[in-house]
């Protein structure tokens, strides 16, 4: 059949125009992109959007405690009179950066190990994959809690703790993709030209397995944000006064059900973030891997 007519689906060989066309055609992907862009903008311009910067460094205002949303305090105030809107806006920074850091860290470790396992096979593969299996027997949140407790509080420690439970997924994904790609003819061609292992992995295999990894990363950022919030909620992780969505939610427990706004606004924000990254990830999957749709 005609190559020019019936568009043969070649995920890696397609033009970007056509990919974007497919992305644009689905409104959920665009909505996801919009939410994520909004979050990023809030993250970048957070300091300019904040209405009560002094509340972010721990200052309290007992006069105006637990006020319902109004013209001054858009999201209402908490039990020490801090502006919830300011806290949620600045929490975006922590949550998004932490989520991103977890995924990037987890992916780097996972892809490196998975690629090595998939390319060399044999006992290297055995060792890495048994390590992955071992990790997968422990629930992620439990492990993260344990590590976070051991390392002590702090944003960086929390990121490390979550990333430790995050790499195996990437290792598995990368291993499978590498194993498939290393049999491709262009890899054989590179070997016949005398290309070394590093060049083959770095120039020929990795660029060709990036699509599914990017998809997974965009889907995972949402879950990582959720995990950060969960750790914040149970009190391990970021400590006040650093604003963080999960810990805002935890504090709100004490004021429920009367001061509903203290829980609703951080809660909605978390949902929105997870939802946005998931929609974006699904959209990217359609773009990179059209065969996996539905």
């Amino acid at each position, binding site marked *: 059949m005609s*190559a020019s007519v019936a568009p043969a689906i*070649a995920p*890696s*060989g*397609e*033009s970007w125009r056509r990919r974007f066309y497919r992305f644009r055609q689905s409104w959920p992907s665009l909505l996801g992109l919009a939410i994520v862009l909004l979050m990023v903008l809030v993250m970048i311009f957070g300091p300019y959007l904040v209405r009560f910067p002094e509340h972010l460094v721990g200052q309290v205002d007992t006069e105006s405690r637990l006020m319902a949303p109004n013209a001054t305090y858009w999201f209402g105030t908490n039990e020490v009179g801090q502006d919830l809107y300011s806290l949620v806006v600045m929490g975006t920074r922590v949550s998004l950066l932490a989520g991103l850091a977890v995924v990037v860290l987890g992916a780097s470790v996972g892809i490196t190990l998975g690629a090595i396992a998939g390319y060399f096979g044999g006992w290297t593969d055995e060792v890495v994959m048994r390590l992955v299996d071992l990790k997968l027997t422990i629930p992620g949140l439990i492990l993260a809690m344990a590590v976070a407790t051991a390392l002590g509080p702090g944003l960086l420690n929390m990121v490390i703790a979550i990333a430790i439970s995050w790499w195996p997924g990437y290792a598995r994904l990368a291993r499978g993709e590498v194993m498939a790609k290393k049999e*491709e*003819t*262009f890899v*054989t*061609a*590179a*070997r*016949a*030209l*005398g*290309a*070394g292992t590093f*060049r083959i992995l770095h*120039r*020929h295999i990795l*660029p*060709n397995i990036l699509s599914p990894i990017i998809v997974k990363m965009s889907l995972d950022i949402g879950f990582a944000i959720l995990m950060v919030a969960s750790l914040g909620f149970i009190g391990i992780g970021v400590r006040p006064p650093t604003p963080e969505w999960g810990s805002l939610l935890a504090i709100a427990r004490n004021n429920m059900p009367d001061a509903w706004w203290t829980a609703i606004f951080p809660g909605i924000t978390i949902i929105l973030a997870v939802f946005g990254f998931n929609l974006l990830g699904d959209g990217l999957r359609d773009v990179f891997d059209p065969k996996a749709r539905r």
Partner: protein
Amino acid sequence: MILEIEAVTKSFDGGRRGLWRRVPKVVALSDVTLSIRRGESFGIVGESGSGKSTLARCILRLEEISSGRILFEGTDLAKLTPRQLQRLRARIQIVFQDPYTSLNPRMSVHDILVEPMEIHRDRLGLGARGRTDRAVEMLERVGLGVQHLYRFPHEFSGGQRQRIGIARALMLRPDFLILDEPTSALDVSVQAQVLNLLHELQAEFGLTYLFISHDLAVIRYICDRLALMHRGRIVERGDAEAIFQRPETEYARTLLAAMPDPDPDRSPFL
């Protein structure tokens, strides 16, 4: 003799499937002996599973042979140090069958053609500029142009891709070129052009061809001598025209009879 293959046998260990079950050993080549003269076109004909592609991989040392010897200009390939092997890679090159999978979809034509020179930078001593110039020169030689330099494989037709594959194989000026079914994925009008290009390049670069194909007409057109393979063995070998006119073995006769002739008068059904 540029290449001598002496009693080469290659078997694949089945490996393990599941915990205990071993897959039986597969013998891909058994007792293959051939010698190829400098500057000739040597054809290897066989149907699928005859071992012809495995032989190519063994010559390229992408696969280790189980027994026997392969000598390139008198040197045993199995005895090369890694350094010598690297040098050899510049001298024996290959063009693959499928132009759609043999080029890295993420690399531009420029990167594809320059890569061999980057790998062998030490001995070539070319700067980035020099490498690009040489890539353009070769691109033009195979019938494409400088305007194609920064395009990606998916922007080309099958025939054009195959030309890029040929250019890549010739970048290091090899002496010996393995052509593994280089035209079987192409339309006949494109095939004719690629065959003609290969013919011109052979004279121009002083190449020796090992031409692997299942298409007897193509082999007859391009090759001086040939070997007929069947189930990992060579069943007949010799001067190409002689084999086509007076096949000695039963298998050769069957294969020749099965070859569809574009002359309707020779239809077996008339």
